[in-house]
Protein backbone atom coordinates (compact mmCIF):
# COMPACT_ATOMS: atom_id res chain seq x y z
CA UNK A 1 0.00 0.00 0.00
CA UNK A 2 1.48 3.36 -0.99
CA UNK A 3 1.39 6.28 1.49
CA UNK A 4 -1.32 8.93 1.10
CA UNK A 5 -0.31 12.13 -0.68
CA UNK A 6 -1.74 15.44 0.52
CA UNK A 7 -1.50 18.62 -1.50
CA UNK A 8 -3.23 21.88 -2.37
CA UNK A 9 -5.01 22.15 -5.68
CA UNK A 10 -5.82 25.36 -7.58
CA UNK A 11 -9.35 26.60 -6.93
CA UNK A 12 -10.51 27.98 -10.31
CA UNK A 13 -14.02 28.39 -8.97
CA UNK A 14 -12.87 30.85 -6.30
CA UNK A 15 -10.88 32.93 -8.76
CA UNK A 16 -13.90 33.36 -11.01
CA UNK A 17 -16.62 33.71 -8.41
CA UNK A 18 -15.00 36.59 -6.58
CA UNK A 19 -13.52 38.61 -9.45
CA UNK A 20 -15.65 41.63 -8.54
CA UNK A 21 -18.31 41.41 -11.26
CA UNK A 22 -21.56 39.51 -11.38
CA UNK A 23 -24.63 39.84 -9.18
CA UNK A 24 -25.41 40.33 -5.56
CA UNK A 25 -26.49 37.13 -3.82
CA UNK A 26 -30.06 38.33 -3.24
CA UNK A 27 -30.38 39.27 -6.91
CA UNK A 28 -28.97 35.90 -8.06
CA UNK A 29 -31.38 34.05 -5.78
CA UNK A 30 -34.37 36.09 -6.95
CA UNK A 31 -33.47 35.47 -10.60
CA UNK A 32 -33.08 31.74 -9.99
CA UNK A 33 -36.40 31.57 -8.10
CA UNK A 34 -38.13 33.40 -10.94
CA UNK A 35 -36.72 30.99 -13.52
CA UNK A 36 -37.57 28.01 -11.35
CA UNK A 37 -41.17 29.17 -10.97
CA UNK A 38 -41.65 28.70 -14.72
CA UNK A 39 -41.30 24.95 -14.09
CA UNK A 40 -43.64 24.79 -11.08
CA UNK A 41 -46.75 23.80 -13.01
CA UNK A 42 -44.97 21.09 -14.99
CA UNK A 43 -43.41 19.73 -11.81
CA UNK A 44 -46.77 19.66 -10.01
CA UNK A 45 -48.24 17.72 -12.94
CA UNK A 46 -45.35 15.26 -12.81
CA UNK A 47 -45.89 14.73 -9.08
CA UNK A 48 -49.62 14.12 -9.57
CA UNK A 49 -48.97 11.69 -12.42
CA UNK A 50 -46.38 9.81 -10.39
CA UNK A 51 -48.82 9.37 -7.50
CA UNK A 52 -51.44 8.00 -9.91
CA UNK A 53 -48.82 5.66 -11.38
CA UNK A 54 -47.74 4.50 -7.91
CA UNK A 55 -51.30 3.84 -6.84
CA UNK A 56 -52.06 1.92 -10.04
CA UNK A 57 -48.97 -0.25 -9.87
CA UNK A 58 -48.49 -0.64 -6.12
CA UNK A 59 -51.77 0.32 -4.45
CA UNK A 60 -53.87 -2.23 -2.52
CA UNK A 61 -56.09 -2.79 -5.58
CA UNK A 62 -53.27 -3.44 -8.02
CA UNK A 63 -52.76 -6.99 -9.22
CA UNK A 64 -49.41 -8.72 -9.06
CA UNK A 65 -47.71 -5.95 -7.13
CA UNK A 66 -45.83 -8.49 -5.00
CA UNK A 67 -43.95 -9.58 -8.10
CA UNK A 68 -42.32 -6.15 -8.35
CA UNK A 69 -39.16 -5.14 -6.55
CA UNK A 70 -39.23 -2.48 -3.78
CA UNK A 71 -36.58 -0.76 -5.89
CA UNK A 72 -39.15 -0.11 -8.65
CA UNK A 73 -41.40 1.74 -6.24
CA UNK A 74 -38.41 3.46 -4.64
CA UNK A 75 -37.45 4.96 -8.00
CA UNK A 76 -40.95 6.35 -8.51
CA UNK A 77 -41.07 7.89 -5.03
CA UNK A 78 -37.60 9.38 -5.46
CA UNK A 79 -38.81 11.02 -8.68
CA UNK A 80 -41.53 12.78 -6.67
CA UNK A 81 -38.78 14.29 -4.51
CA UNK A 82 -36.91 15.27 -7.70
CA UNK A 83 -39.90 17.29 -8.85
CA UNK A 84 -41.09 18.72 -5.52
CA UNK A 85 -39.95 22.26 -6.18
CA UNK A 86 -43.17 24.02 -5.27
CA UNK A 87 -44.81 23.82 -1.90
CA UNK A 88 -48.35 23.33 -3.11
CA UNK A 89 -48.67 20.17 -1.01
CA UNK A 90 -46.77 20.72 2.25
CA UNK A 91 -45.67 17.49 3.87
CA UNK A 92 -45.46 15.56 0.59
CA UNK A 93 -41.68 15.70 0.46
CA UNK A 94 -41.36 14.50 4.08
CA UNK A 95 -43.66 11.56 3.37
CA UNK A 96 -41.60 10.63 0.31
CA UNK A 97 -38.45 10.63 2.45
CA UNK A 98 -39.90 8.21 5.01
CA UNK A 99 -41.35 6.17 2.13
CA UNK A 100 -37.89 5.89 0.53
CA UNK A 101 -36.44 4.82 3.90
CA UNK A 102 -39.10 2.13 4.14
CA UNK A 103 -38.55 0.86 0.59
CA UNK A 104 -34.78 0.91 1.01
CA UNK A 105 -35.14 -1.31 4.05
CA UNK A 106 -37.61 -3.59 2.21
CA UNK A 107 -35.09 -3.88 -0.62
CA UNK A 108 -32.27 -4.74 1.78
CA UNK A 109 -34.39 -7.40 3.49
CA UNK A 110 -35.86 -8.57 0.22
CA UNK A 111 -39.30 -8.49 1.83
CA UNK A 112 -42.26 -6.18 1.29
CA UNK A 113 -44.06 -4.59 4.24
CA UNK A 114 -47.42 -4.05 2.52
CA UNK A 115 -49.31 -2.47 5.46
CA UNK A 116 -46.57 0.17 5.74
CA UNK A 117 -46.50 0.67 1.96
CA UNK A 118 -50.28 1.07 1.84
CA UNK A 119 -50.34 3.68 4.58
CA UNK A 120 -47.67 5.72 2.76
CA UNK A 121 -49.55 5.53 -0.53
CA UNK A 122 -52.75 6.62 1.22
CA UNK A 123 -50.89 9.54 2.80
CA UNK A 124 -49.46 10.61 -0.58
CA UNK A 125 -52.93 10.51 -2.12
CA UNK A 126 -54.49 12.45 0.72
CA UNK A 127 -51.91 15.19 0.85
CA UNK A 128 -51.76 15.71 -2.89
CA UNK A 129 -55.51 15.56 -3.49
CA UNK A 130 -56.79 17.76 -0.70
CA UNK A 131 -55.23 21.21 -0.89
CA UNK A 132 -57.54 22.40 1.88
CA UNK A 133 -56.15 19.93 4.41
CA UNK A 134 -55.10 22.03 7.42
CA UNK A 135 -51.43 22.27 8.35
CA UNK A 136 -52.04 20.52 11.69
CA UNK A 137 -53.56 17.50 9.95
CA UNK A 138 -50.64 17.36 7.51
CA UNK A 139 -48.20 17.53 10.40
CA UNK A 140 -50.01 14.69 12.19
CA UNK A 141 -49.73 12.49 9.11
CA UNK A 142 -46.03 13.26 8.66
CA UNK A 143 -45.35 12.67 12.39
CA UNK A 144 -47.28 9.39 12.32
CA UNK A 145 -45.22 8.07 9.43
CA UNK A 146 -41.98 9.22 11.07
CA UNK A 147 -43.06 7.31 14.17
CA UNK A 148 -43.72 4.23 12.04
CA UNK A 149 -40.21 4.53 10.61
CA UNK A 150 -38.69 4.77 14.11
CA UNK A 151 -40.61 1.71 15.28
CA UNK A 152 -39.53 -0.31 12.27
CA UNK A 153 -35.91 0.76 12.82
CA UNK A 154 -36.09 -0.23 16.51
CA UNK A 155 -37.56 -3.59 15.52
CA UNK A 156 -34.67 -4.07 13.08
CA UNK A 157 -36.77 -3.34 10.01
Amino acid at each position, binding site marked *: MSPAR*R*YHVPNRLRAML*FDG*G*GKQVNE*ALADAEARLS*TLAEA*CDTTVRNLIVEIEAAFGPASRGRERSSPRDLYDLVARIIDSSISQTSPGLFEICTTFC*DLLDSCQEQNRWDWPAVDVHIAALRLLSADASLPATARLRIVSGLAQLRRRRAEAGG
Partner: protein
Amino acid sequence: MTPRPKMLPSTKVNLEKLDVMLVDDNSQGLDILAQVVSGFGVRSIVRCASGDEARTQLLKGAYDLVLTDAQMPGLDGYELASWLRHSGPDQNRFVPVLLITAHTRHSDVARARDCGANYLIAKPVTPKTVLERIYWVAREDRIFVESDSYAGPDRRFRREGPPPGMAGRRSGDLSVAVGHAETPNLSQDQIDSLMKPTKVSI
Protein backbone atom coordinates in the same frame (compact mmCIF):
# COMPACT_ATOMS: atom_id res chain seq x y z
CA MET B 1 -8.52 27.80 11.44
CA THR B 2 -10.35 31.01 10.61
CA PRO B 3 -14.07 30.76 9.83
CA ARG B 4 -15.05 31.45 6.25
CA PRO B 5 -16.83 34.70 5.44
CA LYS B 6 -20.58 34.29 5.53
CA MET B 7 -22.58 34.59 2.31
CA LEU B 8 -24.56 37.79 2.76
CA PRO B 9 -27.40 39.06 0.54
CA SER B 10 -25.13 41.89 -0.57
CA THR B 11 -22.15 39.62 -1.34
CA LYS B 12 -21.22 39.79 -5.01
CA VAL B 13 -20.73 36.55 -6.90
CA ASN B 14 -19.80 36.18 -10.54
CA LEU B 15 -20.82 32.92 -12.17
CA GLU B 16 -20.99 34.32 -15.70
CA LYS B 17 -17.71 32.85 -16.88
CA LEU B 18 -18.12 29.43 -15.32
CA ASP B 19 -18.31 26.34 -17.49
CA VAL B 20 -20.84 24.20 -15.65
CA MET B 21 -21.79 20.60 -16.28
CA LEU B 22 -25.18 19.29 -15.18
CA VAL B 23 -25.82 15.54 -15.06
CA ASP B 24 -29.19 13.90 -14.44
CA ASP B 25 -31.01 11.07 -16.14
CA ASN B 26 -34.31 12.80 -15.38
CA SER B 27 -34.89 15.56 -17.95
CA GLN B 28 -37.04 17.55 -15.54
CA GLY B 29 -34.25 17.34 -12.99
CA LEU B 30 -31.89 18.76 -15.62
CA ASP B 31 -34.36 21.56 -16.38
CA ILE B 32 -34.56 22.45 -12.69
CA LEU B 33 -30.79 22.61 -12.29
CA ALA B 34 -30.38 24.54 -15.54
CA GLN B 35 -32.92 27.18 -14.49
CA VAL B 36 -31.26 27.59 -11.12
CA VAL B 37 -27.72 28.06 -12.42
CA SER B 38 -28.93 30.25 -15.31
CA GLY B 39 -30.58 32.46 -12.72
CA PHE B 40 -27.23 32.78 -10.98
CA GLY B 41 -25.83 34.11 -14.25
CA VAL B 42 -24.11 31.02 -15.64
CA ARG B 43 -23.98 31.18 -19.44
CA SER B 44 -22.08 28.06 -20.39
CA ILE B 45 -24.03 24.97 -19.38
CA VAL B 46 -23.50 21.46 -20.69
CA ARG B 47 -26.39 19.09 -19.94
CA CYS B 48 -25.72 15.38 -19.78
CA ALA B 49 -28.45 12.76 -19.48
CA SER B 50 -26.18 10.05 -18.07
CA GLY B 51 -22.96 9.50 -16.23
CA ASP B 52 -21.44 7.94 -19.33
CA GLU B 53 -22.26 11.00 -21.43
CA ALA B 54 -20.75 13.20 -18.72
CA ARG B 55 -17.55 11.16 -18.73
CA THR B 56 -17.24 11.59 -22.48
CA GLN B 57 -17.70 15.36 -22.18
CA LEU B 58 -15.26 15.62 -19.28
CA LEU B 59 -12.60 14.02 -21.46
CA LYS B 60 -13.14 16.71 -24.11
CA GLY B 61 -13.22 20.04 -22.26
CA ALA B 62 -12.47 21.78 -18.97
CA TYR B 63 -15.21 22.57 -16.46
CA ASP B 64 -15.33 24.74 -13.37
CA LEU B 65 -18.19 22.97 -11.60
CA VAL B 66 -20.06 19.68 -11.94
CA LEU B 67 -23.54 19.21 -10.49
CA THR B 68 -24.58 15.61 -10.77
CA ASP B 69 -27.47 13.49 -9.63
CA ALA B 70 -26.22 10.67 -7.44
CA GLN B 71 -28.53 7.86 -8.53
CA MET B 72 -28.56 7.14 -12.23
CA PRO B 73 -28.65 3.97 -14.29
CA GLY B 74 -25.27 2.97 -15.69
CA LEU B 75 -22.44 5.13 -14.39
CA ASP B 76 -23.99 6.89 -11.39
CA GLY B 77 -22.94 10.14 -9.71
CA TYR B 78 -20.77 8.43 -7.10
CA GLU B 79 -18.90 6.46 -9.75
CA LEU B 80 -18.53 9.54 -11.94
CA ALA B 81 -16.94 11.50 -9.07
CA SER B 82 -14.70 8.60 -8.16
CA TRP B 83 -13.59 8.15 -11.78
CA LEU B 84 -12.80 11.87 -12.03
CA ARG B 85 -10.67 11.85 -8.89
CA HIS B 86 -8.79 8.66 -9.64
CA SER B 87 -8.35 8.71 -13.39
CA GLY B 88 -10.07 11.79 -14.79
CA PRO B 89 -8.29 14.02 -17.31
CA ASP B 90 -5.87 16.57 -15.83
CA GLN B 91 -8.06 19.55 -16.69
CA ASN B 92 -10.98 18.21 -14.62
CA ARG B 93 -9.45 16.02 -11.96
CA PHE B 94 -9.89 18.57 -9.18
CA VAL B 95 -13.08 20.19 -10.44
CA PRO B 96 -15.61 20.76 -7.62
CA VAL B 97 -18.31 18.10 -7.74
CA LEU B 98 -21.64 18.60 -6.00
CA LEU B 99 -23.66 15.41 -5.74
CA ILE B 100 -27.42 15.83 -5.62
CA THR B 101 -29.67 13.15 -4.26
CA ALA B 102 -33.36 12.70 -3.56
CA HIS B 103 -32.61 10.08 -0.92
CA THR B 104 -29.44 8.33 0.12
CA ARG B 105 -29.89 4.60 0.34
CA HIS B 106 -28.35 2.88 3.33
CA SER B 107 -25.98 1.01 1.04
CA ASP B 108 -24.87 4.29 -0.59
CA VAL B 109 -23.82 6.16 2.55
CA ALA B 110 -20.23 4.88 2.41
CA ARG B 111 -20.08 5.46 -1.36
CA ALA B 112 -21.19 9.06 -0.86
CA ARG B 113 -18.44 9.53 1.73
CA ASP B 114 -15.73 7.84 -0.31
CA CYS B 115 -16.37 8.98 -3.88
CA GLY B 116 -14.41 12.21 -3.64
CA ALA B 117 -17.27 14.67 -4.21
CA ASN B 118 -17.02 18.04 -2.48
CA TYR B 119 -20.53 18.12 -1.10
CA LEU B 120 -23.82 16.26 -1.09
CA ILE B 121 -27.00 18.27 -1.68
CA ALA B 122 -30.38 16.86 -0.72
CA LYS B 123 -33.30 17.39 -3.09
CA PRO B 124 -35.66 19.09 -3.56
CA VAL B 125 -33.26 21.59 -5.07
CA THR B 126 -33.60 25.19 -3.94
CA PRO B 127 -31.57 28.10 -5.34
CA LYS B 128 -30.47 29.09 -1.83
CA THR B 129 -29.04 25.66 -1.04
CA VAL B 130 -27.25 25.37 -4.38
CA LEU B 131 -25.71 28.85 -4.19
CA GLU B 132 -24.66 28.32 -0.56
CA ARG B 133 -22.87 25.12 -1.52
CA ILE B 134 -21.19 26.70 -4.56
CA TYR B 135 -20.08 29.60 -2.36
CA TRP B 136 -18.86 27.22 0.31
CA VAL B 137 -16.88 25.10 -2.16
CA ALA B 138 -15.37 28.23 -3.72
CA ARG B 139 -14.22 29.52 -0.33
CA GLU B 140 -12.95 26.24 1.04
CA ASP B 141 -9.29 25.48 1.23
CA ARG B 142 -9.31 21.76 1.77
CA ILE B 143 -6.24 19.71 1.10
CA PHE B 144 -6.58 17.17 -1.69
CA VAL B 145 -5.87 13.65 -0.48
CA GLU B 146 -4.77 10.86 -2.75
CA SER B 147 -4.37 7.29 -1.58
CA ASP B 148 -5.05 3.79 -2.85
CA SER B 149 -8.55 3.82 -1.43
CA TYR B 150 -9.56 7.49 -1.68
CA ALA B 151 -8.90 10.51 -3.85
CA GLY B 152 -10.63 13.82 -3.22
CA PRO B 153 -10.95 16.71 -0.80
CA ASP B 154 -9.95 15.89 2.78
CA ARG B 155 -13.05 14.50 4.46
CA ARG B 156 -11.94 15.41 7.97
CA PHE B 157 -13.26 18.92 8.27
CA ARG B 158 -15.98 18.59 10.86
CA ARG B 159 -14.08 20.58 13.44
CA GLU B 160 -14.87 23.64 11.39
CA GLY B 161 -18.57 23.11 11.92
CA PRO B 162 -21.25 23.56 9.27
CA PRO B 163 -20.96 26.13 6.48
CA PRO B 164 -21.40 29.71 7.70
CA GLY B 165 -25.00 30.69 8.23
CA MET B 166 -26.19 27.12 8.73
CA ALA B 167 -27.43 25.63 11.95
CA GLY B 168 -25.89 22.23 11.18
CA ARG B 169 -27.70 18.93 11.11
CA ARG B 170 -25.22 16.45 12.50
CA SER B 171 -24.97 15.75 16.20
CA GLY B 172 -21.17 15.90 15.95
CA ASP B 173 -21.04 19.35 14.32
CA LEU B 174 -18.98 21.71 16.40
CA SER B 175 -19.49 25.42 16.64
CA VAL B 176 -16.83 27.61 15.06
CA ALA B 177 -16.73 29.68 18.24
CA VAL B 178 -15.18 28.01 21.27
CA GLY B 179 -16.96 30.31 23.73
CA HIS B 180 -16.48 30.58 27.48
CA ALA B 181 -16.52 27.66 29.87
CA GLU B 182 -19.99 27.18 31.30
CA THR B 183 -18.95 25.28 34.43
CA PRO B 184 -15.99 25.79 36.76
CA ASN B 185 -12.87 23.72 36.15
CA LEU B 186 -12.57 20.49 38.13
CA SER B 187 -10.36 20.70 41.21
CA GLN B 188 -7.36 18.37 41.52
CA ASP B 189 -9.27 16.37 44.15
CA GLN B 190 -12.17 15.87 41.78
CA ILE B 191 -9.84 14.76 39.01
CA ASP B 192 -8.08 12.34 41.41
CA SER B 193 -11.39 10.91 42.56
CA LEU B 194 -12.31 10.11 38.97
CA MET B 195 -9.25 7.88 38.76
CA LYS B 196 -9.46 6.35 42.24
CA PRO B 197 -10.22 2.61 42.24
CA THR B 198 -13.50 1.83 43.94
CA LYS B 199 -14.83 -1.37 45.38
CA VAL B 200 -17.68 -2.88 43.46
CA SER B 201 -19.87 -5.63 44.83
CA ILE B 202 -21.01 -8.14 42.23
